[in-house]
């Protein structure tokens, strides 16, 4: 029995229904273990002589560490080793360094200061968990409490305390230029001037803990051939392995990681904190070491979905058409970057929601505060702003006296429409979703809305890209000098000619040429954007957009490697454009593969498993 109703009547001619898997019921490969209770958790793996590791954590939101006194803890029964920040070979990392995005900003164990409550400063490895807990309680840390900031907008005040020394302006640096991610499409100033009414709203979402059944943890043990095995709760096995290799400055070929399929993750097990800790413990003691968060730790230091705050301003005609939409978004990424910088790219790519609006602008800030670092959680980057957009659509519907479903159908994007990131919409289905949902709920909509289709009335004028107004506000560090508005400027200083289409930006190049996929040898279409590759025929020809002339200025392109290039601007009145800084490059390239063959400096004489 299934409760799913397949509406194959919709878009029937776009689908070939002879697939073997999609649309067919299938048995999950791990379901037998789950329903019989046999799927192993990482903690089900037993080791002789297992040691237990626990962290000393900050009781303060923000404090400098004057000194740490572990002498009493060292003398306590069962204590095998105190792990200090200096024991971490490469004690600085950022998760996305594995794809060269962002700068290293987070230590595994903090040595100079802590920036959120619960940040670890050292760890104890003991024979039992109870002994480890007792030893933790005996560690004395001399804290110098610093002023802290917990609100995203307060963190952007000129005199706000510096949360993260790597990003002293309390914002992630986007494209080496701005303290926020910009999106500019058309002219919102003209849009608002043209609109019959302007409707504003403020929306906020609190952090959400993923609350997995199994708390984050890992067991690492020395293995044969100078390797270490690590059983972990991770949901990103190779991410965890790469992060461990970097933090421990150890060849990834010496790490043997084993994951699992139970315990729940929902995004909260990507951050790869427990695996380096457990592996470091095994390296330092030569014994199997378990590092496992208890429930209070999972709640306090386990990275949640970050809090978000959105301001939306719509210019609306009396008939319900939205002609301009401006977003100001704040992601509370906590004390360290983790994945929030990337969530903002996702959010910006999603704007202005599934609607065709000719003038759109957004400024989205990745803000550092003295709160628990935020990370991934189901649809992160999208969920919060979608909540804001759809709440605001209801508000607009009420303001103009329209049915909320009809307002959505009226403004919905259709096949062939131009989206704010300068790509044509295809396979759109919002109208059909609204129609089916209204029908199922017994919600009456007008006949012209019930007859609307994503397949018709799109394109044409709706595929045009208007002249886009740009500005240079919010350069990195500017907000430390003076207050400047957070919202996108409605009177820009630059112009990008109408019809300027976007340009695909390819992600990081493969490391070796022979890793480049050959389009003719794989079964699906690949992007035509790669300059090394013979151009593919462009997908659907743009009905009205002329071919791109100056292939640059879509400012909301997904960036990993993004070479900033000044758009063709008339002389800006205020200041000459500053010299472009070199894009960030790591000082030494991240090492993969065998680095130091031969014996490990860590392995002791203990019996290996």
């Amino acid at each position: 029995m299934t409760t799913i109703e397949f509406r194959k009547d919709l878009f029937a001619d776009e689908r070939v229904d002879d697939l073997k898997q999609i649309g067919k019921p299938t048995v999950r490969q791990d379901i037998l273990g789950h329903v019989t209770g046999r799927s192993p958790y990482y903690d089900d793996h037993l080791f002789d002589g297992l040691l237990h590791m626990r962290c000393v954590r900050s009781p303060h939101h923000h404090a400098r560490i004057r000194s740490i006194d572990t002498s009493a803890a060292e003398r306590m029964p069962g204590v095998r080793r105190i792990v200090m920040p200096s024991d971490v070979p490469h004690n600085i990392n950022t998760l996305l360094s594995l794809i060269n995005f962002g700068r290293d900003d987070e230590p595994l164990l903090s040595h100079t200061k802590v920036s959120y409550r619960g940040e670890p400063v050292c760890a104890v490895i003991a024979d039992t968990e109870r002994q480890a807990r007792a030893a933790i309680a005996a560690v004395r840390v001399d804290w110098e409490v610093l002023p802290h900031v917990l609100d995203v907008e307060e963190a952007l005040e000129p005199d706000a305390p510096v949360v993260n020394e790597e990003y002293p302006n309390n914002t992630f640096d986007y494209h080496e230029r701005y303290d926020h991610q910009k999106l500019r499409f058309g002219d919102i100033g003209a849009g608002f001037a043209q609109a019959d009414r302007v409707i504003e709203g403020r929306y906020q979402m609190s952090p959400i803990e993923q609350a997995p059944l199994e708390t984050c943890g890992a067991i690492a043990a020395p293995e044969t051939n100078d390797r270490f095995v690590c059983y972990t709760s991770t949901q990103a096995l190779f991410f965890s392995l790469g992060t461990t290799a970097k933090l421990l400055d150890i060849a990834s070929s010496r790490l043997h990681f084993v994951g699992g399929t139970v315990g729940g993750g929902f995004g909260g097990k990507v951050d790869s904190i427990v695996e380096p800790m457990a592996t470091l413990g095994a390296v330092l003691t030569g014994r199997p070491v378990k590092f496992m968060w208890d429930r209070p730790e999972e709640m306090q230091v386990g990275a949640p979905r970050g809090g978000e705050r959105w301001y939306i301003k719509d210019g609306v005609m009396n008939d319900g058409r939205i002609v301009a939409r401006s977003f100001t978004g704040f992601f509370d990424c906590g004390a360290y970057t983790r994945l929030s910088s990337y969530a903002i790219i996702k959010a910006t790519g999603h704007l202005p929601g599934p609607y065709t609006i000719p003038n759109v602008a957004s400024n989205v800030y990745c803000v550092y505060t003295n709160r628990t670092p935020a990370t991934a959680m189901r649809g992160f980057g999208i969920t919060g702003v979608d909540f804001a957009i759809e709440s605001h659509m209801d508000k607009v519907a009420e303001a103009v006296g329209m049915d909320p479903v009809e307002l959505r159908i009226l403004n919905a994007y259709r096949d062939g429409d131009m989206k704010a990131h300068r790509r044509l919409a295809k396979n759109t289905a919002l109208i059909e979703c609204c129609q089916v949902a209204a029908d199922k709920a017994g919600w009456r909509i007008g006949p012209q809305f019930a007859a609307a289709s994503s397949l018709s009335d799109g394109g044409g004028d709706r595929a045009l890209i208007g002249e886009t107004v740009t500005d240079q506000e919010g350069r990195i560090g500017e907000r430390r000098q003076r207050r400047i508005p957070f919202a996108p400027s409605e009177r820009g200083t630059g112009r990008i000619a109408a019809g300027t289409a976007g340009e695909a930006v390819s992600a990081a190049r493969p490391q070796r040429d022979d890793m480049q996929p050959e389009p003719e040898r794989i079964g699906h279409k690949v992007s035509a954007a790669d300059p090394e590759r013979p151009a593919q025929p462009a997908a659907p020809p743009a009905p009205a957009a002329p071919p791109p002339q100056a292939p640059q200025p879509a400012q909301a392109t997904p960036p990993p490697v993004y070479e900033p290039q000044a758009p063709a601007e008339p002389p800006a009145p205020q200041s000459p454009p500053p010299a472009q800084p070199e894009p960030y490059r790591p000082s030494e390239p991240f090492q993969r593969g065998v680095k130091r063959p031969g014996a490990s400096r860590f392995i002791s004489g203990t019996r290996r498993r």
Partner: protein
Amino acid sequence: MLSVETFETIEEAAGAVGERSRFMAGGTLLMVAVNYGNQGFDRIVRTSDRRLGEISNAGDRVHIGAGVTMAKVAASRDLAFLAPAARSVGGPAIRNRATVGGNLFAPHPYGDFATALLALDATVHWADGREEPIETVLQNRGQSIGLAAAVSVPRPQADEFRFLKVARVKPKGASVMALAAWLPKSAGRLENTRIAFGAMGATAARVKACEAALNGTNLDERGIEPALQAATEGLSPQDDALASGWYRREVAPIHLKRLLIPERRL
């Protein structure tokens, strides 16, 4: 190190309980503390005394050993009036371990069964032979050390005793509040009423103003109105993850009304 000591009799176990030790009855709360590394105790004291698990009739009262589990209460014919309260505690696995004695000392928001015992004016029998009304036991909880061996409760007439638990997650959620009422009647009017609230303060507590307002009245909408006004007098409900103190105070009269005059749900 954590040690576990098991004694033959309740009296011996009572003598062994002291500083940095805990008595283990069902272990539903104590084992959580052990698993979460609570450093507040080093010794766990238990007893294998069978008297702890007995239910017996003594005149017009029922004597319940402190080690009787919620599952056993729910299954007992003599304690049918307490079965709804016993069934409201946890899920089947918890009820199979959780004991009457442990519930007397369960911290907020737990202690639903103790709320029912408080409304029934139960007597606590300590291992050293003392007897004490449950009300003062709850009031002085945490200030003295002793081992409860049993409780005894009077047997109410049919329909005189009512219990209601308000939880957000059904059927196993912890209490937003628990309500228990003993409503004896004399010549058709209420007399010697006892109303107790659980999860509306640190421990279960009676609301004497509410009881006084009910005495001498009929159980009808007009009659209970003054009692509803006084429903939370003297209570100081706390904020927690389940509900704010303000919310608890606001909704308490509504739940009390549902307890006193059961609505006919269509």
